[in-house]
């Protein structure tokens, strides 16, 4: 039986990702990593969770494997499976197994979206044992000291089916993320999109306005990511109001009254 491995160099974060720290999250992550503790990133969509983990992968100089979880993601999608190749069945490591085997960072994005059985396979990896049982191979893989598991989760979802079980969450060091303070957010928008300070200031202001509407017609306010997207369009010479309509208002809502409200709010500041 032959083995396929994922090449290490492909998973390195080569360029330093831009990340604006908002607190002592870098120090905490580093400390947790040194103590071989898994990390849970909590926070609303688009507030910088994934960017943070990329930054940490660069900072710790570790390759990173990211799995975007979806509602049909099963445990074997993470661990691996046999495939038929030329009349032979060969085993292919899943992303999690590969990360454990080589001592990478494994980042499971939006873990609650995945099927319930996935959370069970990560349990033995997340406590003192740091083991990944691979049932189909009859193997018990021990994680090397460089391996790090991080998962992300948006606590704002009000679905009982998308809740993280206590037995899972109590294995993690949790870092809470929120949208950054206005000045930091402004700096991020400027840096990411290349627009000038006055426009970034207005975009951030609009972001705060839409966040005022959260729970009153909007499920979420505009995330930093959306502000950056709008900024990029503006930087490419789309008029601000059009950019906001397409990158923010339409992304936030389908409801005509709400769309118009966000549209008029953007017109009022530009």
């Amino acid at each position: 039986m032959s083995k396929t491995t994922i090449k290490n160099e492909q998973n390195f974060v080569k360029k330093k990702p831009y990340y604006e720290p908002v607190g002592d999250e870098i120090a905490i992550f580093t400390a947790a990593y040194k103590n071989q503790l898994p990390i849970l990133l909590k926070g609303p969509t688009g507030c910088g969770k994934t960017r943070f983990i990329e930054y940490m992968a660069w900072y710790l100089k570790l390759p990173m494997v990211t799995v975007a979880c979806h509602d049909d993601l099963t445990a074997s999608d993470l661990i691996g499976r046999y495939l038929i190749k030329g009349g032979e069945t060969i085993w292919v490591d899943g992303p999690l197994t590969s990360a454990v085997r080589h001592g990478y960072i494994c980042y499971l994005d939006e873990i609650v979206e995945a099927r319930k059985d996935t959370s069970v396979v990560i349990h033995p990896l997340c406590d003192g044992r740091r083991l990944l049982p691979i049932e189909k191979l009859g193997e018990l893989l021990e994680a090397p000291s460089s391996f790090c598991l991080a998962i992300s989760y948006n606590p704002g979802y009000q679905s009982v089916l998308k809740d993280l079980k206590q037995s899972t969450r109590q294995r993690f060091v949790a870092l809470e993320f929120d949208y950054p303070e206005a000045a930091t957010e402004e700096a991020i928008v400027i840096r990411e999109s290349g627009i000038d300070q006055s426009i970034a200031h207005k975009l951030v202001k609009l972001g705060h306005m839409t966040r005022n509407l959260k729970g009153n017609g909007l499920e979420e306010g505009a995330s930093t990511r959306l502000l950056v997207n709008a900024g990029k369009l503006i930087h490419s010479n789309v008029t601000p109001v059009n950019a906001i309509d397409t990158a923010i208002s339409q992304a936030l809502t389908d409801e005509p009254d709400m769309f118009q409200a966000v549209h008029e709010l953007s017109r009022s500041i530009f």
Partner: protein
Amino acid sequence: MANQSRQNLLYRIRIQKDLEEITGPALSRHSNLEAIISKIANLNDQQQVFIYQWAQLIADSNAELAAHFISFVPKAFDCMIDADVQKWIDLFLKRYDNYGLGKAIISLEDIDGFADEQKNRGVRCSLQQTNLFLQHFIRGLGGRELKIASHDETYTNTEGLFLPESISIFPQPKQNFTLYKLTAAHLWAQTWYGTWRIQVLEKLTTEYNDQKSLDIFNRLECIRLNHCIARDFPGLNREFSEFEHRDADVVILWQLWRDRAGPLSDPTSTGMDTIKNINHFLDVDLPTLQPYQGEIFLDRIRETMLSRIKQEQIAFQQSLDKLRDENAPKNQTEDDDFVPKQMLEVSEGDSSDGEPSETNFQLTLDGQPIELSDDLKNLAGSIMQDFGEIPDQHMEPLEQGEYSDALQAQHGESEGDPDPDLNETGTFQYPEWDCTRQRFREDFCTLRELVVPPGNESFISETLEKYRGALRTIKKCFEAVLGESRPQRRQPEGDDIDLDAIVNAHIDLAQGKDISDHLYTNYRNQERNVAVMFMVDMSGSTLGWVNNAERESLVLLCEALELLGDRYAIYGFSGRTNKRCEVYSIKNFKENYSLEVRQRISGIRPKAYTRMGVAIRHLGQILQKTHARTKLLITLSDGRPEDYGGYKGQYGIEDTRHALLEMKQSGVHAFCITIDSEAQEYLPHMYGTANYAVIDEVKKLPLKVADIYRRLTT
């Protein structure tokens, strides 16, 4: 020529004769009959035929009305298009049918008003159309929650924006819509940029409470606010300038005022500076108010503000007291005198651009910054809007006696209540969590399970009729939930080959083992495996429309749940003292949604108090006995737990919280839907931050409940 005029005369006489025949003597009584007839004679043939026909038809109902019609119809044709004349007839005939001759004639004679309305109809923008948009828009701008309502006068009382019912000033509907937006935004600016700071209000009330001064103040404030808006909202500012008066005299006068009030353009100027300027303008003519400007009603603002300030001060002090309690060092002696004073301080945060911002402050306890709840932030924001700062008296601890949440000694049942028979069927004993003792009071509560007596079934059909449209939408959403298909793997038959299974089979084959025949993937809808218990608040406080809304919600919900096939039960709860806790069965898990169940829903009536903990324990137990992968306990409530004999405030909340924690441990998910606007103070503590929904209007409850349920379980 003489011949021609003779013919005209004959023509007019014939018309008069014809019409008099239709209306009888009624027409002859009209004084200027000749003038009317000659006007009719000048109309074209088609219009004349129209008049003859309608005169006849109206006369069949009432000859007097027909005579009135004839005398006014020339004017109608004069100022309206023909189609609108028909509408005018329809309107006064409708009046006649519904209210009689008098009202019909009034509406018939008001041709000008009717014509105006017809002209404006295409351009009018009504508050009803724009309300939702304005609500979102104003909320987005920030600050205290402002209600939007229609009123004859346009003004704000600092808690609501009162706007005209409709606007038809401009020829384009879009312009009228924009004027709504600008009017609302300008009133919002008064609340945001400190027009109604308490100091300003007091000064105006004591020294400038005459109409002339207030008129000047209103115009000067408009100038100051426009400067503020121009700084923060350039887009809005452009629109404000577009909608200003165009009349040359008015424009010049406003410019004069702006020039004289130059210092008000300073970013640091406040409402107090505006007041200082009033005396400089006593000798100048008042410019007309801008179209987007409202009026000022000092007394209404005063009344609203003073009552709010008092309430908010108490609420703020209570919250701070709670903060102090929570952060108090644990190893304190009981003796109050020796407790070191905790220093709560408020400091203004960094403001990069000098904008007023409700989040621009930081609360520190003994020098340590404290993270505030959203609720407290909003409260502090509202206080800052009134004062421009958090006043010192707000930071002081509350005097004893006003803090109603304080723990009270628990006493058991009230005297005189006979001990219920414990051997009675359907009687249960439950413990209660006593947070003062940090212990359970074993068998403290006695609970009986009763059945709701059936009510009038017509309530159900009325509700279904009332929400016909909404129900269709709800059902559609629920069907969409059902429509979601998920592959089921390793099936004995199915739509697709399960590669995993085939590969495994190969391996097994190679190893000489038996092959499983579960080799297919099936895309059939996965069976939902949800059991849900609805716990309905039947306390006395639900009397009236809350009770109605609860019942309506249940009807809609049952209709939707029948579609989903989820197992569900509905129980009401109430009680008076620990010995008389009651749950009322409306539908248990085994029952179908039968006529009897419907009648019980209709028969739900408010009872006594809200002892929630024991009801949760009992109903949770019933829920646990059902077999389902997901178990859900949803509470419909209108307020915090409260019962006779000390079960209120923190005690009630802690017991309920403990009961919910017990449920959670046994795998039941709890969720609360409430209409209590203060719920954010205690619900996050009881249910967890994401496990409740506050519905701001009772009316919306029936529509929201089904929607929340759908979101919860998909």
